[in-house]
């Protein structure tokens, strides 16, 4: 499935996710900046970029896993945004619209690289690579909490298909029907992939010393310079 047609439209096969709107409240000055940007105001473009660059870049970095690719994708997403801003009709939060655009661009890039996001289980998670679910034996459990830095490193170590579904659902707040629409798979497949992603994370989090470094900085927002 090509996602080209979904990039800048607000029509979606999935219902809007009310939770996503709650997580994307209106930002002061944003509506005025959007209106000015529609008239071609360069300062308004700069304002919109500054309001949203961190969220878009963090999303790209988390999904793509390296700084250079994430910066290129951030640039690509904002160029798409500015060139097509007149098609934004305000039916959803602007940030929701921008993030959907970004996710679609990332998915297109991953597909171009040969990552088959449809047959996730067969292509990304061969049977012998699936997380084990040993109910019969006593496994050591997580110690009541996981810090976000360690989880970030574990997420970075996930196979791309698992990481995609986990980031979309558990981090970004997409629902399974939305993910199914984005990835052109069934909601059952999305649920199954998410579950396997969490199981894999559980395994990874048991040996945090073996986790690779995350491409994301550990503290508050930092420049990637």
């Amino acid at each position, binding site marked *: 499935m090509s996602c080209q047609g979904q990039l800048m439209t607000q029509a979606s096969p999935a219902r809007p996710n009310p939770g996503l709107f709650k997580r994307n409240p209106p930002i002061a000055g944003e509506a005025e900046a959007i209106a000015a940007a529609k008239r071609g105001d360069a300062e308004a473009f700069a304002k919109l970029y500054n309001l949203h660059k961190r969220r878009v870049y963090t999303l790209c970095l988390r999904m793509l896993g390296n700084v250079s690719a994430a910066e290129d994708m951030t640039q690509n997403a904002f160029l798409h945004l*500015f060139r097509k801003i007149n098609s934004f009709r305000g039916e959803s939060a602007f940030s929701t619209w921008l993030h959907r655009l970004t996710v679609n661009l990332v998915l297109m890039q991953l597909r171009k690289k040969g990552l088959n996001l449809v047959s996730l289980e067969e292509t990304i998670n061969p049977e012998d690579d699936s997380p084990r679910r040993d109910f019969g034996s006593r496994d050591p459990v997580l110690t009541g909490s996981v810090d976000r830095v360690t989880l970030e490193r574990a997420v970075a170590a996930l196979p791309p298909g698992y990481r995609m579904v986990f980031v979309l659902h558990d981090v970004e707040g997409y629902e*399974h029907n939305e993910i199914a629409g984005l990835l052109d798979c069934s909601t059952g497949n999305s649920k199954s992939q998410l579950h396997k992603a969490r199981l894999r994370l559980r395994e990874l989090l048991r040996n945090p010393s073996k986790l690779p470094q995350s491409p994301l900085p550990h503290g508050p927002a930092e420049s990637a310079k």
Partner: protein
Amino acid sequence: MTLPGNIDFDNLKPEEFEHILPDLFAAGSGKISQDPRLKKFLAANPDCAALVSDLEIIAETARSLFEPVAEPSDRVWQNIQAKLQEDSALASIDDDYIDPGMPLD
């Protein structure tokens, strides 16, 4: 995969629980550990209870990753500006374009 309506939660087996777990997570608020239907089962199956607890911790911590932690370098905005200026220049050329075949007044 959807949650069947005829599940006997009081006599659930671990392998059945494993099968329905993705749907249990998807169906509710994610707090399976507090689902009264599963209280007896989880008490009798500590490994399953530990699994549920761990997966809930992972899902809860994941929500804290929503806030952005990284910022792109200045190069990104410089490139965007340059491309937008190119677009603007091209649009200006398009606006000024005169069809050579068009009759002059």
